[in-house]
């Protein structure tokens, strides 16, 4: 039993890293723009397909390919923000953004179906199916790399937000959009760049998701979005570091439940969310706390 439990914790921690990569962009976008980006799941899949194209057609290593897919997704994110999100005004802005991002998801999904069709594909590289033996456990390289990438990206985002002039503008916009405008922050520019960064980070999540799973097609993002939303709510909407902590926590809980009864893992996943929110309604790193970091 001890071995099984240790294996479950390892699976949960490594899997949590992958989910953090997919969730961190979602929470960043919400933190700055007060927008629930329903398209995040499809963005993950878009990132996976971009990696797929570079890998299959240009034979680029998956991680090397991120040097292209991350900037490409940044540009896509900025375009989406300017075209679909920025025009939304008024008190219904946040709720209308749900519909706008849903429309974005449908458009991207439709384009992916047209280009790639419905059949499942997967990302391949020599390290995707290999693992390293440690204390009697086989740790998949792709999961280890994914976890490392998650830590690095979360740290980079933290530095960007808390150690740069741009980060100060972002945090000012998070705290009070109107006040930020009054002190000279170009909030439209901040919003577009932040949306772009949120989507760009998702490119890395998409690549790791595509490489670690059994296959993906244009529809695969819809199974992700509810879990990603649960993770960022648990973390505290807008909390970057919280997304990593919450992902690791939830995936570990789920993985431990898998030992006894896998069919209960989803129930426990959302039950854990409810229990944590009953104790801390604003999430582990609640919104106010997150914004005051």
């Amino acid at each position, binding site marked *: 039993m001890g071995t099984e439990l240790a294996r479950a914790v390892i699976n949960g921690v490594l899997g949590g890293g992958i989910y953090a990569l997919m969730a961190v962009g979602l929470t960043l976008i919400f933190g700055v723009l007060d927008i629930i980006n329903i398209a995040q799941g499809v963005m993950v899949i878009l990132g996976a397909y971009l990696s797929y194209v570079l890998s299959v057609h240009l034979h680029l290593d998956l991680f090397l390919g991120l040097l292209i897919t991350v900037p490409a997704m940044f540009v896509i994110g900025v375009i989406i923000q300017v075209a679909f999100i920025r025009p939304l005004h008024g008190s219904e802005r946040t709720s209308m953004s749900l519909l706008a991002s849903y429309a974005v998801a449908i458009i991207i999904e439709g384009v992916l179906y047209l280009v790639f069709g419905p059949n499942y594909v997967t990302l391949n590289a020599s390290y995707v199916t290999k693992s390293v033996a440690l204390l009697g456990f*086989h740790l998949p390289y792709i999961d280890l790399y994914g976890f490392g990438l998650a830590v690095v990206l979360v740290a980079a985002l933290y530095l960007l937000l808390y150690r740069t002039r741009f980060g100060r503008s972002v945090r000012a916009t998070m705290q009070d959009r109107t006040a930020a405008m009054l002190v000279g922050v170009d909030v439209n520019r901040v919003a577009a760049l932040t949306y772009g960064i949120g989507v760009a980070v998702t490119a890395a999540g998409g690549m790791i998701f595509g490489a670690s799973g059994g296959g993906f097609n244009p529809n695969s993002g819809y199974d992700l979005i509810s879990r990603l939303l649960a993770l960022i709510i648990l973390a505290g909407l807008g909390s970057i570091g919280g997304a990593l902590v919450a992902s690791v926590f939830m995936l570990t809980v789920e993985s431990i439940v898998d030992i006894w009864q*896998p069919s209960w893992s989803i129930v426990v996943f959302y039950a854990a969310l409810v229990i944590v929110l009953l104790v801390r309604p604003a999430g582990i790193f609640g919104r106010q706390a997150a914004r005051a970091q």
Partner: protein
Amino acid sequence: MSSHRARFLTIGISAAVLSAMLAACSSGGSGGSNSPPATKPILIGASLSLTGDFSADGQAFLRGYKLWVQDVNASGGLLGRQVKLIYLNDRSDPGQVVTNYTTLISTKHVDLTFGPFSSLLTTPASGVAARNGYAFIEGAGGAPSVFTAPPNEQAHNVFDVSLPIADELVPFANWLSSLPASQRPKTAAYPMADDPFADPPVQLTQSMLQKAGVKTVYSKIFPAEVPDYAPAATNVAAKNPDVVVLGSTDVPTVGAFIKAFQQQHYTPRIFIAAAGPDQGTAFTSAVGVGNASGIMVPNAWYGGSPNPESQKMVAEYIKIYHGTPSGINADVAEAYSVGQVAQQAVTATNGLVNSKIIQFLHSGVTLHSVQGPVKFDSLGRNGAATTFIFQWQNGKFVQVLPAGAAGSVKILNPKPAWK
């Protein structure tokens, strides 16, 4: 708080309406009339999963239906009239499939209804057909729950032209049980997706193998909708069973298990999956041709079938879509068979009266299809279907069980190591 709730409710309703409209907009044809004159085409309605979890299967089903429509029209149509397929996208959603068949029957006024993909969607869809007096001929709703659903027990309107899935792994279990004790596997694992299609055959296999002395080391049901199957697969690998009988519903489930097994340095001696490996190139392109080798799957049809009707269909398919016989998704044949059975029923009854078609299909008559003979029992199961076990061998999809049956080749045992 209440205004927030109202706002969310408004958004939710708007999103639902929008998605319903988008689904309806993906219609593949125009509407029909209630009593079309003889020159108008016969309208056939189907709801297909063109997007969503079953989209790969749904698209393959569409190809099968279209291929049959093309063939029947090329040979003069049905009752001298051309056939037109009207299809709506159900997004793999059991709620949307009900809306779609209601639309097809009440608004589009189709003459006949053909089934969707999966038992999960067939059950609610067939209820709509039953309430409207339609025969529901389908090719991918073989789970026991489809036939025992109350609407079918009353109306007896479901007709599954394919293999009833409950017994589909019996040849596999019989083969393992028949091996000499020294060659028979000692342990087996039974991971199952929570799906009415996936579980019954695997559970039956488990019971048969236990009786044959094969010890169960893992038997658990995991949620079908999770994006990550690695924890379940890792737990199976840790048990190191000789046999893995995977209750899968699609390619990514099998792919995830294969990947996790590779990462855990575990190769089962025998690996069979309820679904996924039967999807031709959709399977091999996702898992790799090398990794597919040795993996088995039950079905009633394969691209290399000696059935002349099947060979004709395969040739036509390759002419249009290219590829090889092994690369053709079995869904294509299932859908094509639906059309063939409907064609024979319409011809025999010399009309489009659904009550007569239902009566005819329950008459005990044996029909033919690319999948082989079709004969329905009182609940619409195809009692004439023959179960085969197929295996990927060096990039080819071949029939291996029952051993000695026409077309069966030697089984690859043990399964080769992962590539």
